[in-house]
Structures are given as C-alpha cells and as structure tokens.
C-alpha cells in the first residue's frame, strides 16, 4: 500500500474510534456561526465595509469560521503525537519504510477531509439557513484553500507536538497561539481604524493571510496583488513549517 494512503488509513481508523471528538470538530464552527455571528450581526446592526464592499457581519465572519475549522482540526491532529508517544508507537513509526514527509502528510490527509466537511456544513448553514450569498463559482478555490491551509497549521503545531514532551505545556503554548493568531488578524473585524501597530502585526499573521484568501473565495473581497502576496506567504509559511517538522522528527531522539 502507498505510504501516504497507509498513514491516512491509520489516522482514519484512530479518529473514528472517538465519534464525539470528530463531531466536535464538525459542530464547533456551526456554534460560532449561529451564536457568535448572529449575536454580533444584531449588535452591529447592519453591514460593514470590506475593501469597498458592504457585507453583513455573519457573512464577514464566515471566512473566519472556516479558518477556525482548519485551525482546530490541525490542532487536534497534532495532539495525536502525544497519543502516539503514550502508546510507544511514535518511535516505532520512525523505523517504518516511509519518509518523515509522508508520515506528516499522511497524518493530515484524513483531517483535511474533516476540515472540508466541517467547512461545507458551515457554508451550507450560512447559505441556506442564514441567507448569506457566496460566490459559488469560487467554491473549488475555497475548498483548495481550506485543504492547503489545514496542512500549513498542522505542520506548525506538529513541530511543537513532536518536540514537546508534556501535553500540558503543549496546551498552554497552543492556547496562547490560538488567541494571538485569531484576535490579531482579520478573523473577527476589519483592520481599518485599528492602531497602526495592530495593523502591522496582523499583516504578518498567517491567520490574516488565510482569512483574507477564504473571504475572497466566499465573497470575492480583496485586491488581487494583496491576495497573491498572501497566498505566496502562506505557501512559504507551510513549507517552512513542514521542513521544521521533518527536522524535529529527525532529531527526536
């Protein structure tokens, strides 16, 4: 069997043993969309301007919700390194005839499907239950962005998951990263009017790049030059994280 397919199958078999956890990955974005999105939509009482376009807050938030799906799925996937370490299988996996890259990519493939499914649910609720209008012709691009960015986040968290020995330390680090990356980005609000230091920090935040790309895929917002720069930046970020994750696996002992 192909190495990536074998790692994919292993991850699939493991994740379906915990249906509640899997359901959590799928449902949490819906809860955000329905509770947080609608609540703020009412509070703000109308449309907000994004790159010259007026959109409702729930529509604005939808890209952030999809980013949240990819981020959560990637984070949950990286927890599996601790499970593998607990069961002793982690080191045994390193003796198998698969490359470190194949191991990492195989681990995320099933979870990319989870992220795409979770995102599809969020989009379906947004469109059919809330009435948000999306750019259907850009949907394949949105799916591609979801898939690739889930990988990018996973490679980032994999570095910590592989290197760290304590799960509580890992949780502290990722919780801090979660808050910083989400709130210092365009996930919940446009950057216009925010302090310049905030805007500068957000511009260098991969979460901003991802959310802007997803927002383009859903609503068609954003300028082409900026979007291309952000796509390149996220690709470089993902490649660097993958390289560091492979390095961490090679230096694990």
């Amino acid at each position, binding site marked *: 069997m192909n*190495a990536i397919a074998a790692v994919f199958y292993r991850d699939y*078999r493991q994740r379906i043993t*915990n249906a509640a956890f899997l359901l959590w990955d799928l449902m949490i974005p819906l809860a955000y969309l329905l509770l947080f999105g609608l609540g703020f939509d009412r509070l703000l009482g109308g449309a907000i301007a994004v790159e010259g376009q007026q959109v409702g807050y729930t529509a604005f938030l939808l890209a952030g919700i999809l980013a949240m799906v990819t981020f959560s799925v990637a984070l949950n996937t990286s927890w599996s390194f601790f499970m593998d370490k607990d069961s*002793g*299988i982690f*080191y045994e996996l390193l003796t198998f005839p*698969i490359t470190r890259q194949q191991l990492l990519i195989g681990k995320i493939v099933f979870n990319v499907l989870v992220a795409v499914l979770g995102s599809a649910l969020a989009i379906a609720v947004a469109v059919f239950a809330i009435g948000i209008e999306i750019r259907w012709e850009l949907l394949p691009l949105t799916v591609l962005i979801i898939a690739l960015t889930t990988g990018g986040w996973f490679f980032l968290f994999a570095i910590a998951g592989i290197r760290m020995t304590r799960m509580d330390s890992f949780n502290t680090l990722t919780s801090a990263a979660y808050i910083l990356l989400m709130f210092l980005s365009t996930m919940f609000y446009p950057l216009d009017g925010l302090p310049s230091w905030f805007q500068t920090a957000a511009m260098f935040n991969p979460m901003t790049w991802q959310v802007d790309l997803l927002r383009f895929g859903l609503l068609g917002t954003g300028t082409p030059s900026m979007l291309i720069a952000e796509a390149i930046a996220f690709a470089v970020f993902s490649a660097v994280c993958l390289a560091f994750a492979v390095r961490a696996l090679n230096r694990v002992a």
Partner: protein
Amino acid sequence: MNAIEVADVHKIYRSKAGAEAHALNGVSFKVPEGMIYGLLGPNGAGKSTLVRILSTITSPTSGHATILGCDVVRQALAARGKMVVVLQHTASENLLTVRDNLMIYAYLHGVGPAAARKRASALIEEFELGALLRTTVQELSEGTKRRIQVAKIFMLDSPLIILDEATTGMDPLMKRRVLDRLRAEAKKGRTILLTTQVLSEAEELCDEIMILNKGRTMASGTLQDLRALSTRMFRVSLTFADGATDLPRRLEALQPTELHVNGRSAEMVFQGEEASLLGRLADISRDAPIAQFEVRGPTLEEIFLSLMEKSR
C-alpha cells in the same frame, strides 16, 4: 554481504545544560546475513542507542553504520525498507483492535490488503490471538501487548529483524514459541540482531555475541570465543558415593570462587588450570569416592559477570 556493518560509531547526547553523555564510544562490528547476533550489556551500556542508530531513529555523532549496504544516515529510507524493529518499550496502537494493529503494520510497510489478510490469518493462529481480534489493545495486559508487537514483525519478510529486549514480559510458553520462530527465520536466511538481559536466551539463540559496557565493546565472538576470554573459568559438579562429614571443609580447601554443597553433591566454580585441580580431587576421592564428575566451561552469565567485574 554483511547484513549489518558498524564502524567506529560514537554517540554523544548533550543536555540543554551542555552536559555530555557518551552513550557509544567507538563501537564496531559486522553481522553476516543469516546470523543471530546478540548484544548484551547492563542498563546504560548503549544497546538501545545502537538499536536506535541502526533503525534510523537517531544518527551517530560520528562513525557509520550500514544495513545490507544502505547507510543508515544517507540512505535511511532504503535501510528502513530492509528491516523490522521491535523497540524496548511496548509499542501498539492502543485505540485500535488487535486485527487493525496487524493490518496497519503491514500497510505501513507497503503490503497490500490481500497479502496482509493472508499473513495475519496465519499469525493469529500461531500467536493465539483469535479470541482477541476485535478487542482494542488498550484493554489487554502488557504481556499480550508485547505478544502482538512481536507477532507484527512476522507479518513481513524483511531480511533483517532487530529486537530490543523483545521477550520482556512474555509468559514462558510464548517466549519459547518466539525463540523457536526466530531460529526458524534465521535458518531461512533472515538476520536477527537482538539485545537482551536474559543471558540464557542469548546463550541459547545467538551465533555470535557482543558484550557492551559504558558504550564500549567489552568482548565479542562466539560463545566459545567468549569462554576463552573468561580467564580459564570452569564449573565442576561432583556427586560423592558416600557422604563425608568434613566434605565442605575439604572442598573449601580447593579454593573455588563459588561453592554450593547439597548433601552428597557439590557445585564449584574455579579459575585456573584444570589439571592441578584434578590431582587434588583424586586425593579427596580416596576417602570419599566420587560417583559422578563433570567439568563444564562457564555459562554466558558467568562470562558476563566476570567481564563486568573486570571493567569496574
């Protein structure tokens, strides 16, 4: 071709505080194909570090090692394709069933579903796993987990098997079955490298043995070679026809390094020339006739302890 070649391998672990631990200090050896080679040594000798280097989990600080001609650093993937490894600690997919553990292990080694199913069926019978197939591994005892871990390696035909204290925690019957199976695999031409602290296991199974201590090779060779190194140690078993009242005192006068007297029988370990002892035993036998007499070379355990004693 040699299945394993290790040349002047050093491994230094550095702590975050900068302290260095020399786990391996210039270890070299070769294992021809089809041989069962044992690595012996006390805790911290460097056995597991050597296994980790050979199985490509970690790299040597200097020196080099090859698996069937593939360098474990530069051609790590190719080297991994030629071996199966059982590491020291229990390793199993705890959330998955026994069947999944076997199948996924095979898939991860490139075996297709049909071939994996066929191989698993035979192993399930051999390792008495039939009743546990649908049980998740986390519900099983450590001994059973170890049995599954060892069973997994027979899902494949990789030319090299590396076992790091693989029989630890197994019940004696299963251990016997695994040792017999390993011997059979070696006869088929597979090479086996095993580390163990159960010296009788190595004595029974291994064609050649290397004794490691503090990251250095203390001795290596066949059991006969090692016996020759152990400073003319030999064991004498005696059974007297009649009990002599002062037997323990008279035997103690022979100055054995070990003496156990039980009724008319005595077991002694000596270091020195056998010939001089025989004359003195002949003197004793005039008063207390000897019914049975046996001289044996040292056991591996005695050789091991003698070498460890010398290295202190």
